[in-house]
């Protein structure tokens, strides 16, 4: 980027952002800073500063990656950008702590949709939240706050929602298999996992809005606690217990693997808090299925990421996409532990 700004949002992108903001705010706007954040495996996430009327406005830009290969395979997993934007707007309007979408930028044919939203306070860096002394107060309230937030999300009337994909476990398994096939992979471990899950799908449950990727890496946390819920690209309508199972996966516990609830506490604490907030009885065995399922789903997402590396040209390739392929076996290992262990510790 020019003007001594950091990062390399290109000139064209910057002008598009400025144009969209000008249209929304109806006043001259300049983007003065842009820094790419290291989070966001599917999307590029940029922290921008826009100046209008001499006032600096901190913003976030989410945009599709430069290379768009394999769009079809990823779309089997993703909500779809336009629906994601509508969903964020709906939830923000309902008073749920979701960043307000300021402007959507249609990049034209093939370029995908980018959008600009407010930058809420807090960080979505689990290592900091779990490790730094300055987040001790936040840690003491986060289980309750996550449970309250999930109960609120699951309680949104589906009639108010944009047309999200409605996905049962069986449908999701079908999509996972299609992704594996699209990657031209024959993986006996994944096949056994798919077959086990198919044979153990719990009886039908209520279907609600599901965040789909609810974990510390997608929660903004400041020193006093939860300040925002971000990254809705895997949102769908499905079994609400899937959000609880996903939140307990070891992959999201970082330096505190002994604490299943996001590295913050025990499953029992989370289930009790959620049960009270949502006024439901949490069935641990149902959550256990979804935690096992979540690991297999994560393994398939790892596959999608590494696929992006494999098909990218050298100048468009990202080393973190290659690295994530090596996490597939972590997820499968945890899957087998979950289905083999007698106990599901609460």
């Amino acid at each position, binding site marked *: 980027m020019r003007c001594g700004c*950091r*990062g390399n949002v290109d000139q064209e992108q910057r002008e598009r952002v400025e144009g969209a903001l000008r249209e929304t705010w109806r006043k001259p706007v300049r983007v003065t800073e842009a*820094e790419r954040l*290291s989070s966001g495996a599917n999307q590029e996430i940029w922290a921008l500063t826009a100046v209008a009327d001499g006032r600096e406005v901190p913003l976030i830009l989410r945009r599709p990656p430069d290379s768009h290969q394999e769009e079809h395979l990823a779309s089997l997993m993703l909500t779809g950008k336009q629906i994601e934007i509508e969903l964020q707007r709906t939830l923000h309007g309902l008073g749920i702590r979701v960043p307000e979408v300021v402007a959507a930028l249609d990049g034209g044919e093939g370029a995908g949709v980018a959008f600009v939203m407010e930058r809420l306070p807090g960080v979505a860096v689990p290592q900091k939240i779990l490790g730094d002394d300055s987040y001790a107060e936040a840690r003491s309230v986060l289980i309750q706050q996550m449970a309250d937030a999930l109960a609120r999300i699951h309680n949104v009337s589906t009639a108010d929602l944009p047309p999200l994909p409605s996905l049962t476990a069986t449908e999701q398994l079908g999509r996972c298999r299609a992704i594996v096939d699209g990657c031209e992979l024959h993986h*006996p471990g994944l096949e*056994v996992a798919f077959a086990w899950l198919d044979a153990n799908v719990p009886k039908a449950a209520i279907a609600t809005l599901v965040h789909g990727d609810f974990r510390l890496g997608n929660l903004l946390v400041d020193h006093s606690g939860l300040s925002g819920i971000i990254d809705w690209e895997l949102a769908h309508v499905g079994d609400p217990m899937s959000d609880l199972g996903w939140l307990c996966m070891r992959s999201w516990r970082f330096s505190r693997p002994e604490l299943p609830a996001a590295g913050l506490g025990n499953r029992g604490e989370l289930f009790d808090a959620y049960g009270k907030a949502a006024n439901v009885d949490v069935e641990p065995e149902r959550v256990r299925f979804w935690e096992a399922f979540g690991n297999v789903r994560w393994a398939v997402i790892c596959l999608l990421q590494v696929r992006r590396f494999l098909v990218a040209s050298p100048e468009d390739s990202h080393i973190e996409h290659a690295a994530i392929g090596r996490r597939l076996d972590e997820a499968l290992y945890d899957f087998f532990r979950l289905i083999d262990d007698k106990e599901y510790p609460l």
Partner: protein
Amino acid sequence: MTRPIPDAKGLVRAVSAFVQQVAASERSSYRRFQSKVAIHLLRILEREVAERPKIEAAQLERLRDVLDTSNPDLEDLNRRLGKALRSGEIDWNRNDIQAHVRKCVEENLLVSNPRWLR
């Protein structure tokens, strides 16, 4: 026979040190993050060089037992087993298959992330 120096370990150390030196002067936090990932991958590569031949020999032997064949092509056998499990031609719940896929995961983790194993 004299081994060329640096050996595989030494080469990995040289590239890791170089990446670290480059990262130290990098202003972008995203680039510094990517440098850490690069060093992490080099450590995996070091274990790959040391362990993969043994792991593949063991996997080949198990696959030949499971599929009752003398075929020596590991990739081909994995493809056959994957397809047969998908189609139901082979029962996914067979004890030897359950044991084989778990063992494969553990072997791969010994290379990719040994600390994950409990």
